[in-house]
């Protein structure tokens, strides 16, 4: 009898879309990523919660980044893709106005880790 009550609850929990972002493995350090996002001045264009002076209005805000299906509206939002995007956006989307900032692969992983940690 109890299982009949619990089953719908379990089903409801499974399709909860408002919860915390799924943990994604980037191998990066969230704290380090936060510092790097400030250091590369990403906040001049993007609004990024928790990053110093990141209040830019020129590009999309990066809240809830982990819950997005696509990066820049067209690239599948996987950790590998995000790291590649941060290193050289134009190689993935030639028309983009986001410049390649000389980000190393390691830095990109840290920054991706922070972006995926955003609520």
């Amino acid at each position, binding site marked *: 009898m109890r299982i009949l009550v619990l089953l719908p609850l379990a089903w409801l929990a499974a399709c909860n879309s408002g919860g915390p972002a799924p943990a994604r493995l980037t191998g990066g350090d969230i704290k380090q990523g936060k510092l790097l996002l400030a250091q*590369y*001045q990403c906040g*001049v*264009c993007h609004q990024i919660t928790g990053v110093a002076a990141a209040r830019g209005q020129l590009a999309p805000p990066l809240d809830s980044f982990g819950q997005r299906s696509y990066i820049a509206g067209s690239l599948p939002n996987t950790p590998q893709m995000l790291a590649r995007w941060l290193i050289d956006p134009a190689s993935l989307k030639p028309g983009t106005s*986001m410049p*390649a900032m000389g980000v190393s692969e390691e830095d990109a992983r840290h920054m991706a880790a922070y972006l995926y940690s955003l609520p």
Partner: protein
Amino acid sequence: MTGPQQSALHPAGPDAEVIAQLAWVLTGGAAVVFAGVLVLCVLGLRRQRTVHVRWWLWGGGIALPVLVLSALLAFSTLRSAQLSEPSSQHALKIAVVARLWWWEVRYTHPGGGEDIVLANEIRLPVGQPVYLGLSSADVIHSFWVPALAGKVDMVPGRLHGMTLQADRAGVYRAQCAEYCGEQHARMALHVVAQSPQEFAAWLTAQARPAQVGEGALLAAGRRAFEQQRCGACHVVRGVSEGAAGRPAGEGGIGPDLTHVGSRLYIGAGTLRNDRGALAAWIANPHAVKPGVRMPSSADMDGETLRALAAYLEQLK
């Protein structure tokens, strides 16, 4: 040192040291007098005792203030007299013109050529006196590098002089210290003090016309610079000399960009200088510095914007 220093309490030059000492001694003196008055006040309120009015009146009311205030006055007068007199003799001469809301900086060409014009950054050799000729092209501004010297106002139509010296290498932030309009707060300048050898190498590099690197991206950026008519206001010596009819070396309405890539900041201390900041600034300067006179770029696609930013970044 981490980050640019902007503190009168951390002096890095002889004048700033005098000013910092004056501030400490006078504030300390005032604090001691204030504390003494408070102690007397508490003692007077807690215990009833007979007061020798004459003693207190002559001693505490006249003799003590005359002694203490005279001593402080004498100290501050003598110490202030040790501040350097503005003199261009035996000093490196740099002209600074304040504009709404940035600083034009001019060095005399060591080889006798045209002035070397840059913006929002002053470099100077450590341990040498530097004479700054200060003027304003529009409203009243004030030049202030707290870590190196006091303030000097820049009044339109007048030329003011100041001498300063940096005793330690480092980056010192300067700030306009006279309210001058909407972006007064983002009218900063960075003073970079470096060894005489580094300074000489830097000045030689700044004296050269712009060096444009190879590659399709930079070529596209250079084309964008022309097509967007950046040259109407900005000079890139050797590449884009600015609007016709302007006397050579007169500079433009906006900052000279010949070696913009070598500067630490853009927008008069608004953003750290890198490719992304340049792109963001060009796309919409008003987003970061509302009211600035530079218009937003119009109808530029992302690729062109990136190329233009890359082109400016490599103008070292």
